[in-house]
């Protein structure tokens, strides 16, 4: 087996009493777009800064192509980075900002000129070469920052919430460009965000952070379809969480009962029989029927319905008075109205039982 491109091994970082990250381990393939996703304070930036060299881990190792990065000074790591805050040098023109990493590397003038031209074309800002950063919008500045970070062909590009300060439309525009740049350059990207939609849109794989640890690593689809914990399920996409009591564990499946005594089946990891748990079902994987069509159905009352154009959104109430969200195609929702009794159904492989 070949060694992975970037290996993060057993990272731990503490500030006095605060544990910022613990047991963070991850292998990243060359050319991969890997996103760190997680709530504020979950340790995404800390992990990224250790890779960049701004911070030293208390424990653990970071290897690039099998060689330790931690022994290398930050300015010798040859890594590109884009920050959340605008960090273009205010006294240099756009062109000179992009040229900066090449100048400190003492590259010949002709090479610098050609490279700056090429990088500005990559981010579609060729006409802005002689502008000062202060004369550009936030989105343009971040694109220049990307050009600067890629000018020296770093094998690895780190991005810490580079689009967080931009409005939604601009953010989507640059996300699109980022995908294109990733494909054109083939650079490996470590990207930090707390926006799950952004993570799904951009990434090959996503590492979900929670309280200083990685909860789960996988493609967007894997995380969405097979979340390994209640936290991941709640963080990616919308979910309904129903209280259950586990009765019996089979091979990867659990039999459980709802508070009203009704039995249900779902995917599950190891569970002790008799323990309390949660059954998670996505809103769009539930159906509301006027009458039961299968054994696994829950009697509910329709509380609210909203027409959203491409779909309908329902709020239904369970026998134990919990409100659940359901999304269905408009035509499937016909014949239902507020206050009517109905049956809520889903395929048992779409139910996940968590602790």
């Amino acid at each position, binding site marked *: 087996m070949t060694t992975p491109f970037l290996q993060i091994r057993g990272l731990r970082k503490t500030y006095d009493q605060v544990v910022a990250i613990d047991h963070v381990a991850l292998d990243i393939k060359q050319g991969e777009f890997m996103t760190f996703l997680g709530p504020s304070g979950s340790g995404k930036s800390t992990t990224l800064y250790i890779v*960049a*060299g*701004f911070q030293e881990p208390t424990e653990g190792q970071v290897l690039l192509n099998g060689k330790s990065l931690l022994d290398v000074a*930050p*300015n*010798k*790591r*040859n*890594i*590109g*980075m884009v*920050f959340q*805050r605008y*960090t273009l*040098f*205010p*006294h*240099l023109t756009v062109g000179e900002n992009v040229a*900066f*990493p090449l100048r*400190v*590397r003492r590259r010949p003038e002709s090479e610098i000129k050609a490279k700056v031209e090429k990088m500005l074309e990559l981010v579609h800002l060729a006409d802005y070469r002689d502008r000062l950063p202060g004369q550009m919008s936030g989105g343009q500045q971040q694109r220049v*920052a990307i050009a*600067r*970070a890629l000018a*020296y062909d770093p094998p690895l590009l780190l991005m810490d919430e580079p689009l967080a300060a931009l409005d939604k439309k601009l953010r989507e525009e640059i996300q699109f460009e980022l995908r294109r740049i990733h494909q054109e350059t083939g650079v490996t990207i470590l990207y930090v965000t707390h926006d799950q939609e952004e993570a799904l849109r951009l990434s090959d794989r996503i590492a979900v952070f929670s309280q200083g640890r990685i909860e789960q690593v996988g493609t967007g689809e894997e995380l969405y379809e097979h979340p390994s914990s209640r936290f991941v399920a709640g963080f990616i996409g919308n979910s309904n969480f129903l209280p259950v009591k586990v009765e019996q564990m089979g091979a990867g499946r659990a039999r459980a009962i709802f508070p009203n005594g009704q039995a249900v089946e779902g995917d599950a990891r190891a569970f002790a029989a008799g323990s309390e748990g949660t059954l998670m079902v996505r809103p769009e994987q539930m159906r509301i029927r006027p009458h039961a069509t299968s054994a696994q159905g829950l009697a509910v009352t329709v509380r609210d319905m909203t027409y959203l154009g491409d779909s309908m959104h329902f709020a239904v109430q369970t026998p134990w008075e919990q409100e659940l969200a359901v999304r269905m195609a408009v035509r499937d929702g016909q014949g239902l109205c507020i206050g009517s009794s109905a049956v809520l159904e889903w395929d048992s492989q779409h139910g996940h039982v968590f602790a």
Partner: protein
Amino acid sequence: MLLDYDRLGGWRWGLVGVGTVVMLFLLLPIVFIAALSFGDSQWLVFPPPGWTMQWYQQLLTDPVWVNALLTSAKVGVIVTVLSVVLGLLAALGLARSRFFGKSALQAFFLTPMVLPVVVLAVALYAFFLKLGLTGTLTGFVIGHLIIALPFSIITIGNSLQSFDSALEDAAMICGASPLEVKWRVTLPAIRLGMFAAAIFSFLISWDEVVLSIFMASPTLQTLPVLIWSTLRQDLTPVIASASTLLVAFTVVLMLLASFLKKGSRQ
């Protein structure tokens, strides 16, 4: 605001009146001196019966005055350079590091601002007598530097404070060594603060008189000292012209400083 200028009504004119009186009070002596320096009366009659440039001619041909002018300029330039360089190093150290006793050190650096200059002058005089530094250029430079340095540290420190240190991180990861980061990113970003510090330092040295009187010798004195000592012997319009030159140069530097401030806000 309660005391908004636009809402003062009749009081407004009173305010304008008081402002005008204060301004005249501050400016009239200077205008008076400037007028006298061009007047042709030996006895400083006001208003001058006629106009002449002869006092300036005398000033610029008398070796004693010219020497004093040159000494002032020389001391001023050396103090400026040292004050900016040392101020920069001190401000960088205070802004970018955390160590025990930092705030005490910070306060210590600023003591010359609150200490009465006379006290400082007497202390330095006694000390420099022992070292044989009175009446030397070095004596002037050290004395003025002590007064100028706090202003440099404050001015440069303020511009470091408003400078985002993430820029240094960005430069570092771009491949710049710590020294290159300072040279190519930090210094250009705070250059206006450094210019301001330079101008203030020069001005402080340029019109410093208390310390200078203690440091001066008959052969080495600055312009303010010479004005003061000449004044004690006789009253000649040459003093008026020297004073006018002093003020004119100060005004030019102040204007430069305010332009810089405007530039940094854009």
